[in-house]
């Protein structure tokens, strides 16, 4: 039962990264690729009907985590207090920028929200990347299962790290590169003309950067958490995840070069999923490792909620996710194709 809920939460988080990942990525690169007011409008329109639904995956995953692993939710959310509050403020600013930009016809109003949009999207990506790196590296969980992390200490990994150290900053940068690529590919799919060409040119330059970032992150992870390979040695089947990452990394630049936009975007999706699976497989059955010794790790065994809740949860969760799948298919289908094909009928 525990394993099932571990993978349910992991799948929901992966859905969040793949789906909200592209609209965050569009935000991060918007000022780089969209120069005129019209182009920026198209960038917003490309994510307009779907961004809010994409973000719901984060909330639903958070709620499911709370329900299935109350201890993990309690410990991690209070321990990561400061960065989570900053994430909340950034989510507020970003939601406002996407939705309020169009409310007033004024150039200053537009450029103000454009900058807020790019700034908040970019920072959110860096924070999410750093958060994942924190989970992989481990945090100083005490014997009472709680911890509190400063934003930074001495920028080194070890027993008493900060939220930000060389490893988690690397995680943030890698996330920014990967999701910027993801967002550029999505935006290229949804647009035409100059905007499309600039997205594509940016994707061509980001491709090799992502490859280098991934290659650097492997030895970095082994340094930051030496026993992160232990699981892989025990269960060689888990090597499937890093092998998939490697295949995607080879395919991605080739597909981008060939101009196969759709396959390139799908490969980027697969890359993100494989990276997350690799991280999750390396952790399992630990949910949050402690830097103060494995006896303080938060594991599936000590964090799992009671058996009755989990059994009932399986029923409603399955129903709910099928419904969500239907809603998402409907919305993505109705707003398929290039932005220009639906923007004229898109409005009152």
């Amino acid at each position, binding site marked *: 039962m525990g394993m099932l809920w571990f993978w349910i939460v992991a799948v929901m988080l992966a859905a969040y990264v793949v789906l909200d990942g592209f609209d965050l990525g569009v935000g991060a690169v918007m000022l780089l690729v969209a120069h005129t007011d019209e182009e920026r409008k198209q960038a917003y*329109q490309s994510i*307009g*009907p*779907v*961004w*809010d*639904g994409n973000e*719901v995956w984060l*909330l*639903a995953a*958070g*709620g*499911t985590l*709370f*329900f299935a692993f*109350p*201890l993990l*939710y*309690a*410990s991690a*959310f*209070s*321990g990561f*207090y400061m960065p*989570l*509050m900053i994430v*909340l403020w950034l989510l*507020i600013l970003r*939601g*406002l920028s*996407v*939705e*309020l*930009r*169009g*409310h007033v*016809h004024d150039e200053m109003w537009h450029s103000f929200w454009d900058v807020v949009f790019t700034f908040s999207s970019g920072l959110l990506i860096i924070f999410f990347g750093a958060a994942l790196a924190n989970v992989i590296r481990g945090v100083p969980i005490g014997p009472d299962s*709680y911890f*509190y992390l400063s934003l930074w200490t001495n920028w080194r990994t070890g027993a008493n790290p900060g939220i930000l150290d060389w490893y988690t900053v690397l995680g943030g940068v890698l996330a920014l590169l990967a999701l910027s690529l993801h967002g550029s590919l999505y935006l290229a799919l949804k647009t035409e003309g100059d905007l499309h060409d600039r997205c594509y040119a940016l994707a061509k330059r980001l491709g090799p950067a992502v490859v280098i970032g991934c290659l650097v992150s492997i030895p970095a992870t082994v340094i930051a958490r030496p026993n992160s390979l232990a699981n892989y040695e025990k269960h060689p089947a888990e090597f499937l995840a890093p092998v998939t990452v490697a295949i995607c990394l080879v395919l991605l630049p080739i597909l981008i070069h060939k101009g196969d936009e759709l396959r390139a975007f799908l490969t980027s999706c697969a890359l993100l999923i494989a990276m997350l699976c690799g991280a999750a497989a390396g952790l399992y059955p630990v949910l949050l490792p402690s830097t103060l010794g494995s006896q303080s790790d938060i594991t599936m065994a*000590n964090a799992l*909620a*009671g058996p*009755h*809740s989990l059994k*009932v*949860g399986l029923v*409603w*969760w399955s129903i709910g*996710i099928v*419904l*969500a799948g239907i*809603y*998402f298919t*409907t*919305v993505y289908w*109705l707003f398929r194709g290039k932005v220009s094909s639906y*923007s004229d009928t*898109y*409005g*009152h």
Partner: protein
Amino acid sequence: MDALTLHRIHFAFTITYHYLFPQLTMGLALLIVVLKTMALRTNDERYDVAARFWAGIFAVNFLLGVVTGIPMEFQFGTNWSEFSRRTGGVIGQPLAMEGVFSFFLESSFLGLFLFGEKRLSRLAHWGAAFLVCLGSWISGFFIIVTDAWMQHPVAYHLLPNGTYEVSSFWGLMMNPWAWLQYIHNQCAAVVTASFVMSAVGAFYVLQKRSSDYGRIFLKVGVIAGIVSCMLQIFPTGDLHGKYVAKHQPVAIAAMEGLFHSEKGAPMVLMGQPDVENQKIDNPLAVNDVLSFLIYGTTSAEVQGLDQFPRDQWPTTLPLLFYAYHIMAGLGTYFVAIMALAAFLLWRGKLETTRWVLWCLLLSFPFPYIANIAGWMTAEIGRQPWLVYGLMRTSEGYSKHVGAGTSLFTLLGFLGMYSVLSILWIVLVYNAIQKGPEETPNHEHTGTLAGA
């Protein structure tokens, strides 16, 4: 201030501010469905225009509800970690269900409702409006199930590691407290929406512009208003009050300011509780009424605060007393003004009775105050318990998050929400100034834009 107080203010402030928006959007979603239904039935184009106008105002409020709602889901863990650890096995259930069943529904169909009017059939567009409404009401239900478990824990058992688990899923969902609170709360959301709609209608009629629409808004607003205001007191408020009296008698005694047990207990309409000397200053009281309201007979004895140990009295008792009295007082005023307006509407004189229109216009903030006061009554009345009878508030907060840190983020939220308030005023004022005739034709950037 100590950490506990700051964490309490942190949650209280952010949830109070958040609830300014859902109380309108839940009610307004229903009224928009009413307008869309009228449009389908009468084929009168004006109802479609009216629905579109309100959809714009709905969009702004919904956006602010969404962005201020996300912090709520995080704060259980960030500021109340020990509470989350112990009770996550119970309240995690409805909170996760809210995400899975409501947020996906709302976020998907809101876009279709706001921007799909041209690409959907009229019936399908009505369906989108209905699903948005349904989503927001489902969301409200799961939140109230969560709160009701904290007020009146049912269907749980304690596990050996000190955490609680649901022993019966349906027991949790069918908690009588949840259903009583839910109908009372949803009714209150309709009260807010109908006052807002009536106020805009009165504004247009008084200004002698968009009078056609002003009349529609007055009609729908006042009819929904009189129905919801009456239901708010009877039966929903009455039933809920009696249930509280049965399960939280100490909260009722504090709400009513009844320090000493009495037969034929009086109802204090106004006064200032003096906790030190255990009396009400300047009381304006009606004898016997309280006994009658709770037990249906004037001779019944109502338990006063003296029946309970001091450490079980709600903390900040005067605030509880005032919150309850403000809620009840405003609720009575709502029935009076809406009954008058409904009578004039029936006689066809509402549009020409300017002073009543002025009253309706100026009354729109009051339901917001009454809603917040009602929630304060419930939540302060629950004190000193975080989960009634099981866990004290002082046990639940995040011990590892210091007072200084909590104050820092509280100030951050105060600043952020000041900005939101300014944006809200500007955007809603703009929409009302433009009026329904100017079909909104804004460039679109997001799902929710379009006022």
